[in-house]
């Protein structure tokens, strides 16, 4: 048992339990907060795996931006959780067992997926020990990002820009006229002719 493995197990449990609560908790706001906690767990696992840059980015983007955005969205729109009924996921599963779409079949699919993947991982011969990493992870990532992956990087920035514009356009109220459509009236009318 090394410190790495213990941290991994603790963080894994945090991630999974809060992931479960994202799906299970009755309160939408709680679910969002557990989502944040789950992200923190994943960031910790990145640290264990030696990806410091990614861990910091994970916190910055997922916790600082995405979770905040979702929480903010819930607060702004005053979205009450739908009448989910029952406390906890098991109550709902039992109650919905008869339903085709929300009952047994999704449960079997999700559980089956997890079990099958675990079986496959058990059989396969993945390396248990990692080769030692050399040099600073941060510098390597940065260099790769701006040389070999510069095209995807630029495309990602364009996608982000498009998404921002899209989000602004979508959430804009329709009843406002576009601002600044009229300039100041100037004696330009007479200057226009003849030129």
């Amino acid at each position: 048992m090394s410190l790495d493995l213990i941290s991994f197990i603790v963080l894994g449990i945090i991630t999974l339990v809060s992931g479960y609560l994202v799906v299970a908790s009755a309160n939408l706001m709680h679910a969002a907060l557990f989502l944040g906690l789950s992200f923190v767990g994943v960031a910790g696992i990145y640290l264990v795996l030696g990806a410091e840059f990614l861990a910091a980015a994970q916190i910055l983007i997922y916790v600082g931006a995405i979770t905040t955005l979702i929480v903010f969205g819930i607060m702004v729109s005053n979205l009450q959780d739908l009448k989910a009924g029952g406390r906890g996921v098991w109550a709902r599963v039992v109650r919905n067992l008869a339903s085709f779409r929300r009952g047994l079949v999704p449960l079997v699919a999700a559980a089956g997926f997890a079990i099958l993947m675990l079986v496959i991982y058990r059989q396969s011969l993945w390396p248990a020990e990692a080769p030692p990493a050399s040099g600073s992870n941060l510098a390597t990532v940065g260099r790769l990002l701006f040389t070999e992956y510069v095209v995807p990087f630029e495309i990602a920035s364009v996608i982000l820009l498009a998404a921002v514009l899209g989000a602004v356009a979508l959430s804009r109220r329709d009843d406002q006229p576009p601002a600044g459509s009229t300039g100041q009236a100037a004696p330009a009318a007479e200057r226009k002719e003849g030129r």
Partner: protein
Amino acid sequence: MQLEQSLVQWVGNLYAAGLSWWTSLGIPEWVWVALMAVLKGVAVLTFLLLNVLFLIWLERKVAGRIQRRPGPMHHGPQGIFQTLFDALKLVIKEDIIPSQADKWVFITAPLVMIAPALMIWVVMPFGPDLIARDLNVGLLYVSAVSSFSILALIMAGWSSNNKWSTLGAMRSAAQMISYEIPLGLALVAVGMLAGTLSLKGIVEAQQERTWFLLLQPLGFLVFIVAATAEINRAPFNLPEAESELVAGFNTEYSGFRWGVFFVAEYANLLFMAGMAATLFLGGWSGPAFLPPFLWWLLKTYLFVFLIMWVGWTLPRIRVDQLMELGWKFLIPVGLANIALTGVFVILT
């Protein structure tokens, strides 16, 4: 300088001796490492709490002097023990949780607030060797960890189930998201100039060149304004805005929990001042007649005083002015500063 170095050396020797003794007992090494990490944390925490006690007193004195009154005068010379008694009072007050509040979130919010406020100190270089952990992603770590407090404020505001609190929380979310961007832009420029994100590396880069305050006047301007907004200090204290929102997100908090928010706020103030000193004024470097740690403390308190001074001088700005300043001034200036820095870096 000499004294501090020998002290550090002595601690290092002690550490090595303790480790060998520990392993001889047959307990795995990582337990020792974890224990020492906890010890380091306790040391930083103690230092921090002492400073916070002092800061609260200082704030009241500065505010008093600016408003031509003496400030607290009883309890010790110049009222220096006033905060201590206030803290005692807070601890023994009744713990009230509103009946309509979301209890668990209400209880967790102060923890989410205080934890990053303490965690962030991990990367602060108090001296050449006085640093808990010199991460090579230091600057990124700072901006990542500081983004937690947005979540804490929202949690506090929302769970109180009170319209003032919710309004304060929404304001704070908008404000901190808006000002995190210019803050990050200013940090990026500093990182570009130093060629590293490690805070220790940045201080060393400044020893080689000169204070980044001189090379990055625009970046410093953006940083100090955005930092003031990021820690919700006047004139950017809209999330609490006593006169409009009662006390904003922490209206419903009382006693010890309220005290935690208070401590976190001052810890953040100290941290941002320390960052300003580290990034722009050369951190712990200075002439040898003072030990590095004292240089750091001196510069940090310079910025603490600056922020307090500004805060007690300027009136609070409106929400629309806040957004305008952030998006239409600080972000363009921050971007322009990055472009200029890039040109500068290429040319030199």
